């Protein structure tokens, strides 16, 4: 009667020992997480800096502070991946590598991601609860970026001049025949100007106003209230303009700045959450992005809108 008992114990003990050995073994395939030199740190008020350091810097700076449990394989593999991706999208330690306009846009986007609950990542705050932001912390960040918003100068001569110059240029220039294409292979769609309107927005963070257009499939989906998810074939176009304000607070469209497209195809654009992103700048329609992977930037920014099929715009039925 004793034999089966020993046998049973062996059944449990041997695999446990094997697992422990494997666990110990893989500790030697530990990823290298280094802290490269800080080339130029973000310069913000101390209060703001403290919050960012506490909640963002582990993945978005070259001053990563690992907890002991972050260093244990397989957790450390995940941590290393997070840090790699985090730094490539936003790195407060290499802030000097961005232009002043990009710095502001990135910071604004980051605070918006926090306010939408998309950042810090839940998987990170679960293991590092001290990194969670309180409502007060969020308020501090929001107040700070609010102070960076653009206040229009009434009768801004520079903007009026830019608009007039552009209008004259458009009259002169011969219509180009070559359709521009972004590095991810998406061609500009000239017909967007004749599409229906999805919504408009005024953006105080960068002093622009936008018209969001939708192709027939998109407009039909809005009318049918079937936009979550958007149907394949739907295309949204967002055209951004400078604002020209008069003495009475009337704001009209200034110079055309850029047009961006999101084209839905859940198979073709599977890797980019079902959307093909493109952007064409100025009336010359210069394609945005140096390499095809510029879309990572688009996806990161649209991530908090996962619940709305990655679309920020709230469409108007009209």
């Amino acid at each position: 009667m004793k034999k089966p008992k020993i046998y049973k114990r062996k059944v449990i003990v041997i695999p446990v020992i094997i697992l422990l050995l494997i666990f110990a073994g893989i500790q030697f395939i530990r990823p290298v997480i280094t802290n490269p030199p800080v080339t130029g740190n973000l310069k913000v008020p101390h209060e703001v800096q403290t919050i960012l350091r506490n909640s963002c810097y582990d993945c978005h700076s070259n001053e990563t502070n690992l907890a002991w449990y972050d260093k244990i394989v397989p957790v450390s593999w995940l941590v290393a991946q997070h840090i790699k991706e985090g730094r490539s999208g936003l790195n407060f330690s290499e802030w000097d590598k961005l232009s002043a306009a990009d710095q502001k846009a990135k910071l604004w986007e980051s605070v918006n991601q926090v306010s939408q609950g998309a950042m810090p990542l839940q998987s990170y705050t679960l293991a590092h609860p001290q990194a969670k932001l309180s409502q007060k912390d969020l308020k501090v960040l929001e107040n700070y970026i609010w102070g960076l918003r653009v206040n229009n100068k009434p009768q801004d001569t520079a903007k009026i001049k830019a608009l007039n110059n552009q209008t004259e240029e458009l009259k002169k220039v011969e219509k180009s025949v070559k359709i521009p294409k972004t590095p991810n292979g998406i061609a500009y769609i000239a017909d967007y100007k004749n599409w229906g309107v999805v919504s408009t927005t005024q953006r105080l963070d960068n002093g622009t106003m936008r018209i969001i257009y939708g192709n027939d499939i998109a407009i039909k989906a809005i009318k049918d209230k079937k936009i979550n998810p958007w149907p394949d074939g739907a295309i949204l176009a967002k055209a951004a303009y400078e604002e020209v304000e008069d003495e009475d607070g009337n704001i009209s469209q200034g110079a055309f700045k850029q047009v961006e497209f999101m084209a839905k195809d859940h198979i073709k654009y599977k890797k980019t959450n079902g959307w093909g992103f493109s952007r064409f700048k100025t009336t010359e329609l210069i394609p945005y992005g140096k390499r095809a992977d510029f879309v990572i930037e688009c996806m990161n920014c649209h991530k908090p809108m996962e619940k709305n099929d990655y679309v920020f715009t709230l469409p108007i039925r009209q």
Partner: protein
Amino acid sequence: MYSHFQYVNNMKTILYFTGIISLFFLFSCSDKTNENALNKDASLPDAMLDKVSGLQVINSSINKKKHTTSLLYGNQKTVERLKSNELNLQKGEKLIWITWHQKSDPNWIGAIIPGKLLSLEILESVGEKDAFNYQKFEGNKMELQKDTLGNAHRIKQLLNQKKANVPQL
């Protein structure tokens, strides 16, 4: 052979799976339209839908003091008139001007989007010569406004609007 015990056990299994399957259906049949993704405040009532279809966007504008934002649409005739800087309504023209109160965008700090519907104005040339028809619908229910005071001023404003720049291509 078929004991009471087995019967109860089978019933339990059936009930369990029925439960799981109905839960599955309950979730999969939940409303996928997700109306939260729409801007309901700013949307036109069903009876007023499609008024702008077939028209082109002329421009978008904002009044910072009144916190309103407008979209101006026009037909091909309007687009042609604006190209020639003509300020008088031409034969065959149709313009629609929609105005909203502004509200904060819940999805982006510092973005302002159309909120409650304020008015929808239609200016249309009728028949020959200078005859035209102007109508103003107001409020979220889009009731036709009978007070014509101020119409002339609005019409002048409407005809003074410029077309926003768009790329040539």
